[in-house]
């Protein structure tokens, strides 16, 4: 077996050193009744070529985003990733390193994390950020828990806006249900986010508002922040598309206390939903309530600047049952991809990328709005918007797929039994004029 360096002579000699007669003796503590006699019922080892053939055949059975006109968003976004990003994250020193708990030989990862945290703080308009969470949805749930902790557990309600991504709402509901945190009854609905203020009461620890929201609508967080703060609640701002922050006023500038979101759109591919990367930022005063790993600056014995993981007294390996979260592993290598892409872009590149996304989406919205039986519902949007069709969106998407067009996400897939005529359409910088024409023509034909 190509991954195993020991041969039979090695094993024999090593067993002698250990002082046992056979490998079986090393498993002596395992009760006889549960020792497997033969091999488990799975295929035997295979050559690299054979495995590659099998996995490639599976790959060939799917339609990839790059191979067809592509308009899906709804929480995962297809952008062009510079070749440099994927090359660098495959460096052995980044790919095959553990969590940087030994800072003297982990400065590469640690400095990159410090830079990552600063980029996330700048992008969100917050003072501090952590070294990432699993994804945007779990970051959202952790933010809600953090908000109740910041209220010293005296406030037990979280109010989720109707425009929050349905899967973020579901994950948050699931992940807090065991903690006596009360979540408001809600439906995923368009155009109702501003009314979230009606649900804020004195027991409300936080209000969770997404912008651009699930339907692509851009929400002004300022009036919501005002009411939340007046009632003593925190405002948690959520985003699912980091590129949007290149074009929009930051959530921090609008008054948010905690900002969480999905960072996949920068540097990380679609990956059929994972791994993605949860971004998590907050105000300085809340930092000791923040979950997850945090990197900080310090000096070494010679006084040279260096970086370490810090504030670990919040974390499970020190605090055990009193930890702020049980999170341990985060999205390390995805942080690398995110931060490298951000470094390549810089301020100028990110803003330009955001502007291109917006322009492309505007052009597509005009194209679709001109079709009989399709109407764009958004007052505002960044690179994604909601279209009302004269028929079932799921059916239309199937027809388009049969024509090799991935024509968006039917809202009803995420809100079963409701919103059946709504289609979410996304256009990033990868969409060409030709793609739009092909999509427009096919949609028109399908709807007529």
């Amino acid at each position, binding site marked *: 077996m190509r991954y195993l360096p020991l041969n039979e002579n090695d094993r024999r000699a090593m067993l002698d050193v250990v002082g046992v007669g056979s490998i079986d003796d090393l498993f002596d503590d395992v009760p006889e009744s549960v*020792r497997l006699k033969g091999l488990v019922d799975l295929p035997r080892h295979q050559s690299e070529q054979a495995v590659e053939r099998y996995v490639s055949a599976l790959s060939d059975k799917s339609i990839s985003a790059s191979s067809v006109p592509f308009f899906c968003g709804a929480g995962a976004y297809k952008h062009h990733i*510079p070749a440099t990003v994927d090359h660098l994250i495959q460096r052995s020193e980044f790919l095959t390193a553990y969590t940087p708990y030994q800072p003297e030989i982990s*400065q590469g990862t640690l400095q990159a994390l410090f830079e990552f945290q600063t980029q996330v703080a700048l992008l969100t308009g917050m003072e501090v950020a952590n070294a990432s969470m699993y994804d945007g949805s779990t970051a959202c749930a952790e933010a809600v828990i953090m908000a109740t902790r910041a209220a010293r557990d005296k406030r037990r309600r979280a109010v989720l806006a109707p425009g929050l991504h349905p899967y973020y709402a579901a994950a948050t509901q699931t992940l807090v249900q065991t903690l006596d945190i009360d979540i408001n009854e809600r439906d995923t609905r368009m155009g109702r986010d501003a009314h979230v203020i009606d649900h804020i009461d004195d027991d409300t620890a936080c209000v969770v508002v997404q912008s651009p929201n699930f339907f692509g609508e851009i929400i002004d967080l300022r009036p919501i922040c005002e009411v939340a703060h007046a009632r003593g609640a925190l405002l948690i701002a959520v985003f699912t598309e980091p590129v949007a922050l290149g074009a929009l006023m930051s959530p921090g500038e609008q008054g948010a206390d905690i900002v969480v979101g999905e960072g996949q759109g920068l540097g990380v591919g679609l*990956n*059929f939903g994972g791994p993605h990367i949860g971004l998590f930022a907050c105000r300085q005063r809340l930092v000791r309530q923040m979950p997850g790993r*945090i990197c900080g600056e310090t000096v*070494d014995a010679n006084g040279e600047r260096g970086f370490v993981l810090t504030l670990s007294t919040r974390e499970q390996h020190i605090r055990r049952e009193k930890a702020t979260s049980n999170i341990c592993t985060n999205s390390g*290598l995805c942080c690398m991809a995110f931060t490298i892409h951000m470094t390549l872009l*810089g301020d100028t590149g990110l803003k330009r990328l955001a502007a291109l996304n917006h322009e492309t989406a505007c052009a597509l919205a005009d194209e679709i709005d001109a079709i009989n039986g399709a109407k764009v519902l958004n007052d505002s949007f960044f690179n994604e918007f909601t279209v009302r069709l004269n028929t079932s969106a799921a059916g239309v998407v199937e027809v388009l797929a049969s024509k090799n067009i991935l024509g968006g996400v039917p809202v009803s897939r995420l809100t079963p039994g409701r919103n059946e005529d709504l289609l979410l359409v996304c256009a990033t910088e990868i969409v060409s004029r030709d793609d739009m024409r092909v999509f427009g023509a096919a949609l028109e034909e399908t709807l007529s």
Partner: protein
Amino acid sequence: MNSGGRPTRPVAAGSNPPQTVSGSKALNQVQKLIFEIGTPRRTGVDLPEPKGTESRLGSMERKGDIGLPGLSEPETLRHYIRLSQKNYAIDLGVYPLGSCTMKHNPRLNEKMARLQGLADVHPLQPESTVQGALELIHELAHWITTLTGMPTVAMSPKAGAHGELCGMMAIRARLDADGESKRRRVLVPESAHGTNPATAVRCGFSVDEIPGTDQGCIHMETLREKLVHGDDIAGIMLTNPNTCGLFERDVIEIADLIHKTGGYFYCDGANFNALVGRVRPGDLGIDAMHLNLHKTFSTPHGGGGPGSGPTVLSEALKDYAPVPFVVKDGESYRLIEDADNRSFGRMCAFHGQMGMFIRALTYMMSHGADGLKQATEDAVLNANYIQASLSDVMTPAFGGLCMHEALFDDRFLRDTGIETLDFAKAMIDEGYHPMTMYFPMVVHGAMLIEPTESESREELDRFITSMRSLAERAGSGDVENFKAAPIHAPLRRLDETRAARNPILRWKPPDEPPKAAKQA
């Protein structure tokens, strides 16, 4: 698992070689922060000029700079390559972090994870366009349930700790469904990973610790006593092999006792790599167990993630599994995305860590049933070889054989003035990543060494020679050099206490000159 747990504070600088003008030391190049070398106007991507169409951003446009520095492509490459050279990695040498399982990461896994039809697919594409991706998840689930001997696996948990949540939430959902909501106490051995008690509390349980015996296993008498009044017990969280590197011999009885008292058995699968192909956890009577695909099945650790924590569930718990999951329906595959009445809900936005699934399946198929078993045996043999080769100069925490990791305590350092931390830092100068230290906490000054199956006998012998030499030097009173270690690493010992007392968590522009000075 971590090897932190004890903040370091440098105590001695020792001797230093002469300084260079640049500050660089040959291959170890000084590299400033991107904020100190880049500017907001510089960029490493060429994008077309926007045409300037009318904005539909609802008057929420960003005004002014974000403050993000950019670098050109060559500068970017050099920045990160220089940083990379300050990192230790499995591809560089022995990485014996006990419980973390730093094994070889085959590059075929990386290649497969980048195939377009698996990597470049959207999680919400129509099912008909992602049949290959769904089939891969289904196939991996088959390998996992076969290796563990369990009826089902929830694939969506995103890391080990997320898998723990999955298992414990399934237990809680089952208890609540059975009207057993008074069961809110979870038994956790003192030697457990910190995630176990943190997870239990996160799921609304209280934690009741069970001590270990002086042989490193669970104290059965105490366990039996706790179970006498066990009608509030939800279950037990047990790692097997445990964090001392020992197989819990009484595991079948433990499962039996817990079930008789009405509770469930959560097994922490962090050490499943010691059992793959030789023991199926399902045969031990467990109800839930997460796998760490990034440990056991070699999807890389990536400097701290991403992980992947599929969680196997027993007959008693399987109906409570979270959504989504993949089912085979005739010749096609379907994704069940909506929770029915019994599923405890949804753990994350999409379907789990597909990128890790591809790598894990590639790894499993490469090994096959025979190779996986051999890997387990080699891992256990390597650990025992190290323990046997060091037991006369270091002090094994317990007598007898170990499983996949060898646990030493600090008795051999007694009266030397040298602590486990100093010993670990001296290993860095020898070219090794330190072992896990101060964990498990039940052993004083613990050093937990896990070589994995990936090391050759020659590499192990070099490692053993270094370790023996360090142990002998410690015994001979070479305190100063141990306290100064590491001296050959890119940086000397870092001041973690200072970092925590005065947290600097991001770069900030240098202070503006004081206003008075400006006016002048």
